């Protein structure tokens, strides 16, 4: 039985109940957020005739072939040619279409990064980049297919909006929010299934982080798949009497500076958690804000200066220091530093 359900916001009651157990997501509905993207595109396709989906030979994997079946005239499979797809998406956007260019994170953020920068972001065209296999979520595929730097790379580009939703519910909401926004948006999805943790009332607004658990001893700021693990870490720490705030920072850029600073002032210690390299991503973004405004003890969870490897997703998270126990340990360390300060 979990601690104080009232401290949680927008988290499903059945999730809250089991967070501190041995199988925290045993009852959760599991789904890869790439499929949430595909589901949202079907809704968008019905609603908005300007929405088109571009693929690069992974439409089966991302299930955008559902969109292709329903709206064949608005579906374009470029084959294994991500560079052409991204620049063509830019060209389409100049005419008022809203292209969703779909591929894996490594290809979107690396293979076609020049096109993403110069043809999409520089002219600030209304292209949505839908990237599956972000972080090390395509575990068994190995490093060539793990987008372990995508968030950092996209964040570095001017005019970018970078969104990494935590679960299937918020992923669908993120797709709709991206479609409603006029400008480029990078959407980061998981290859592997993640637990459905949120209720449908999750308030996803671009650039507005969400406090999903209250706390005052420390804060874990997480995004994408690591939010669920941050909730587990907080639940376990609660058993030891520590109250940890958990923030779902689904929009990495623009960062919700106000939410970060409020956490810094009110809890005095911050751990960031991202399934992404620790350079230039969420940890960096939060550190930049803290160091210029309110320096407090802080620690970053993420992929260190290393290429990861093949393996089951959860085993990889554990081996590379990104699971709940690592977050809990990091919280204890920043709290110790806070006390010494």
């Amino acid at each position, binding site marked *: 039985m979990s601690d104080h359900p009232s401290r949680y916001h927008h988290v499903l009651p059945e999730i809250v109940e089991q967070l501190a157990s041995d199988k925290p997501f045993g009852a959760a509905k599991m789904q890869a957020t790439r499929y949430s993207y595909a589901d949202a595109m079907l809704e968008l396709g019905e609603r908005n005739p300007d929405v*088109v989906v571009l693929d690069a030979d992974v439409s089966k994997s991302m299930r955008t072939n559902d969109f292709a079946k329903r709206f064949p*005239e*608005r579906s*374009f499979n*470029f*084959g294994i*040619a991500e*560079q*052409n*797809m*991204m*620049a*063509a*998406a*830019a*060209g*389409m*956007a*100049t*005419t*008022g*279409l809203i*292209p969703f260019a779909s591929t894996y994170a490594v290809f979107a953020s690396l293979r076609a990064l*020049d*096109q993403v920068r*110069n*043809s999409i972001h*520089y*002219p*600030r065209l209304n292209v949505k980049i839908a990237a599956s296999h972000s972080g090390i979520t395509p575990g068994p595929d190995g490093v060539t297919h793990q987008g372990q730097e995508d968030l950092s790379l996209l964040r570095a580009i001017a005019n970018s909006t970078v969104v990494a939703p935590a679960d299937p519910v918020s992923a669908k909401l993120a797709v709709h929010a991206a479609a409603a926004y006029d400008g480029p948006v990078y959407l980061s999805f998981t290859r592997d299934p993640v637990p459905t943790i949120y209720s449908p009332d999750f308030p996803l607004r671009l650039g507005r982080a969400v406090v999903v658990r209250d706390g005052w001893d420390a804060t874990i700021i997480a995004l994408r798949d690591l939010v669920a693990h941050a909730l587990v870490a907080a639940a376990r720490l609660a058993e030891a009497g520590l109250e940890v705030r958990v923030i779902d920072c689904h929009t990495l850029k623009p960062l919700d500076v106000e939410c970060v600073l409020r956490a810094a002032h009110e809890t005095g210690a911050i751990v960031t958690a991202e399934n992404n390299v620790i350079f230039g991503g969420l940890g960096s973004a939060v550190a930049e804000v803290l160091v210029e405004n309110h320096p407090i003890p802080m620690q970053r969870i993420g992929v260190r200066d290393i290429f990861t490897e093949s393996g089951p997703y959860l085993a990889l998270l554990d081996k590379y220091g990104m699971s709940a126990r690592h977050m809990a340990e990091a919280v204890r360390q920043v709290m110790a530093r806070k006390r010494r300060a």
Partner: protein
Amino acid sequence: MHQVSSAARTEIGPSIEELKGTAQVIRRDIITMIHAAQAGHPGGSLSATDIVTALYFRIMRLDPADPHWPDRDRFILSKGHACPVWYAALAERGFFDKTHLATLRKLDSILQGHADMKKTPGIDMTVGSLGQGICAGLGMALAGKLHGKDYHVFVMIGDGESQEGSVWEAALAAPRWKLDNLTVIVDNNGIQNDTFTDDIMPVEPLAEKWRAFRWNVIEIDGHKMEEIVPALESCLYRDPPDSAGAEGHQPEDCDTTVTRRPGIPTVIIAKTVKGRGVSFMENVPAWHGAAPNDAQAQAALAEFAEGLR
């Protein structure tokens, strides 16, 4: 075949002779602006001048007062470093005041070193990183078909640019989607940044490559207006405004006959001379990306003035 969207904005273009005169005005502006900037790419601007002139003054359906007109024809200078020719043509055509030309590459200018669609009226796509404009043009052509529009998309690439792999990604894709509303023009001047294309990484035979990619291939002299105009008119997605039909259309003042091929994109491989029109720049690799000094600019302008070409 297609309804012209706005008859009021359709013009019958100037004659071949008038076009030749306009091209010389644009060449003069290119030299003047690159000299003023003391930086830029005269060689590839001058090799593209005659084709760009034909597009903006005779072929394309445009409204300089409404550069975002949805039914306009599009042009993308994928070899974006040659944008002085684009700027000079747009200014001459009335998209913006000619006084801007002197601000090329300067602080706060609307004329960036490589073209920025958000800063310059009439620029249909931001370009500069090679091999991308052709893909963007492909996207515009796809959108045109999806929207049921009859506009045409022209993209100019360089022969050096053809070394970029993404050019061939687009080349592979356009026939698959039957984009006969897309025309690629290769400004085949034989020189790239370092030196002659043949000495760096040869791209020939270009015609055979494009044919193998299932494109309709037209080869022309890219400085002969009598060949440029009918070649461009022949691939227009809609009927040219001054012709009765597309089949076998032959403008009176042109000397070649070409036919449209429905469902097949066209590439025009234009043999050109880098630095064309300035005797000491012609076919000299050093003029790819160098600005003329005062004396050189004067000499070039004098050549135009004397009508040596």
